[in-house]
C-alpha cells in the first residue's frame, strides 16, 4: 500500500490524485502535498509512483496492511522513482527502448511452463506404478 508522500520532494501538481484509479488521495490544502485519505482503497498497483514527476511517492510491497516506513531510509535506498526508471516512462515518443525486450514475455512464459511440464513428467515416470 502507499506508505508515504515526501513533502519535501512533492511540487503539489496533484497528478497522483488524478492518476490513482481507486481514489486513495485527496488534494493537499492550498495546493500542498496530497493526503492519503482512503488507504483501504489502495490496491498496491504502483500507478501513483509511475505518474509522479517528482519521484516523491513510495508504495510499500504489502497490499494486505498499512506499512510504516522510515522516510530517510527509503530515500537512501534509491528506490524512489524505481517504477518510472524501470518503465523508461519519460522516453521521447517513438523511442523503442522502453519495450525492446517486451516481445520475450510470451516465449519466457511458455518456457517456464515447459520446464514445469518436463519436471512433472520426469517425476511421474520415476514414480512406482500405483
Amino acid at each position, binding site marked *: 500500500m502507499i506508505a508515504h508522500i515526501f513533502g519535501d520532494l512533492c511540487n503539489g501538481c496533484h497528478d497522483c490524485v488524478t492518476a490513482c*484509479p481507486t*481514489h486513495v488521495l485527496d488534494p493537499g490544502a492550498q495546493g500542498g502535498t496530497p493526503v492519503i485519505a482512503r488507504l483501504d482503497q489502495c490496491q498496491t498497483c504502483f500507478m501513483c509512483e509511475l505518474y509522479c514527476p517528482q519521484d516523491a511517492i513510495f508504495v510499500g510491497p504489502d497490499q494486505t496492511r498499512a506499512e510504516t516506513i522510515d522516510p530517510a531510509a527509503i530515500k537512501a535506498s534509491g528506490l524512489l522513482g524505481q517504477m518510472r526508471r524501470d518503465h523508461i516512462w519519460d522516453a521521447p515518443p517513438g523511442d523503442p527502448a522502453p519495450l525492446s525486450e517486451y516481445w520475450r514475455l510470451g516465449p*519466457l512464459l511458455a518456457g517456464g511452463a515447459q520446464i514445469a511440464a518436463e519436471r512433472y513428467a520426469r517425476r511421474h515416470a520415476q514414480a512406482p506404478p500405483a
Partner: protein
Amino acid sequence: MHPPDIETDVLVIGGGMAAAWAAIGAARGGAAVVLVDKGFVGTSGVTATAGPGHWWVPPDPGLRAAAIEKRRRIAFGLAEQRWAERVLETTWRSLPQLAAYYPFSRDGTGATFYAGVRGPEYMRALRRHALDLGVRVLDHHPALELLTHRDGSVAGAAGYARLLRRPWTIRAAACVLATGGCAFRSGLIGSHTNTGDGYLMGAEAGAELSGMEFSTIYTLSPAWCSTRTLPYTAARFFDTAGAELDIPPPMADRDHHRALAKAMLEGPVYADLSEAPEALKPILRRIQPATIAPFERRGVRLFEDRFEVKLFGEGTIRGTGGLRIVDDDCQTTVRGLFAAGDAATRELVVGASSGGGSPNSAWALTSGQLGGAAAARLARTQGRRASEPAHGQGRAGLRPTRAARAVDEGAAIAAVKDEMLSYDKAFWRRRATLEAARARLDDIWAEIDQHRHANCLDQVAARETASLVATARWSTGAALARHESRGLHARADAPDLAPDGARRLLVAGLDKVWTRFETPPGQALPSEAAA
C-alpha cells in the same frame, strides 16, 4: 432528476481498453463522444496493470482456421466461428493503428511486435488517441445508474464526480457499457474497482447476462501482493515442512490450480523459482517492473528465496460471463445499450473456457469498436432525444424500498468473498453449498435493496457493494442451474458434460434471480429447460 450537465451522441462508461476502443470507434463514426470512468483512463482496470497479449493471427486462411479450431475444442459448444473471425480480423487491423501513440518494438526476427502490449503504456496510448479524436474524457466520474426513455431504450446515465464532489447527468442517444468484469474484491491487481457495476446498471435497465457460471478462475501470486505471473510458470511448490508438492504444471490449467488450492486449504504453500528460465532472470525488470517491486521492497530474492503464494480470484475478468449480446453490434437486450470487453459475455468467442490472455484482449478491442461504431450510427439515425423524459433505473443503494438504515457493508463484502472466492466452494461446486450461498446472498441483497441509502461520495461505495452482491447472486444462480461440469464451471456433484449442456445459460433478476437456457441459432431443441 438533476438537469443534464451534458448532451452528447454517445456515452461510454468505463475506462479500460474496451472503453477506450469504444470511444475511438464512436468518434471515428463521426459521433460526439463523452467517456466517463470511475478512476483515471490510463491507470484504471486490469489492463493498465497488466500486459495484454492479443489473439494475433495473420490473415492467412489456413492459419486463421487453425487458430479458431484450437479454441473451438475448448469452447464446449458455446462459441461461434464467425465471431472468432471478426475478432481476429479487427484485431489484426487495429493494433498497428496505434503506432503514433505506442512505441511498438521489434521481435526477435526484426519484425514489429504488435501482439503484446504493456498495460500502462498501452492505456496511455489509447487515452491520447481518444483525446486526439475529440473524445471528452471525464476521469473520476463513476456512473451510478442508467437513464431510460419511456419506451425502455437507454437515454444516458447519472453519477457522481468524486474529485469535484458533485452529481452529474449525461443524456446520450446511445451508451456503451465497458465497466469491466468482477473479481469479487479478491485483491487481484487492478481489480479493486472491478465490482460488476455495469452488470447491475445494465440489469436494472432490463439487460440480461450470460455465462455467469464461468466465473471460477484464479491467478498465482505472492501471498502479500498480487502481481503478473511471468516469473512463476516454472515454480516448484513446497509445504511448511519443506516437502515438495506434486503439482501438475501450469499447462494443465484447472488441475494446476486445483492442486494448489487443495494444498493451500491444508496449509501455507511456498514457491521456489530457482528453476525459472535463465534468460528471464536478468530481464524480468525490463518486461514487468511492477512484478519485481513487491519482492525487492520486501527483501525477498525472487529467484532464490522460497516465499508464500496464494491464488487471487479473477471472477468474470478471466471468466467468460457478462451482459448478453443479441446482435452483431454488441447490443444488449436494451435498445441503445451496447456492452464491450469484460462487461459483456465472451462466450461468443471463447465459450466455456477462459479467454484470459489473448482472446479476451482481442474481444475487448473488437467489441469496443463494434459497439462504439453502432452507437454512433444509432445517434445519427435517431437523434439524441434529449428533450424526452428519462428516468434513473438505479435501485439498491440509491432508492431504498423501505426505511433507510445503516447496513454493514463490510460484512456484505466479506460474505461475497467467502462465497465466491473460497477455494473449496469455487473449485468443487455442489448443490448444497450453492443453495446455502444463494440464501445468504439473497438476504444480503434484500437488506441493501430495502434499506441502504447513500448520498454524495458514499453512493460510489454503496453501488460497488450492491454490484458485488448482485454479481455474486447471478454467478451462484447460474452455477446452480448448470448441473454439469463444462469448461471453467466444475460441479463436484456433476463432474461430466451433460448431453444437452451445449447451450448458453441466461441469468438476470433483482428481487428474484432467474435463469433460462438459450437455444443456439440453428439448433432445434425439444424444449427449453427452466431452472
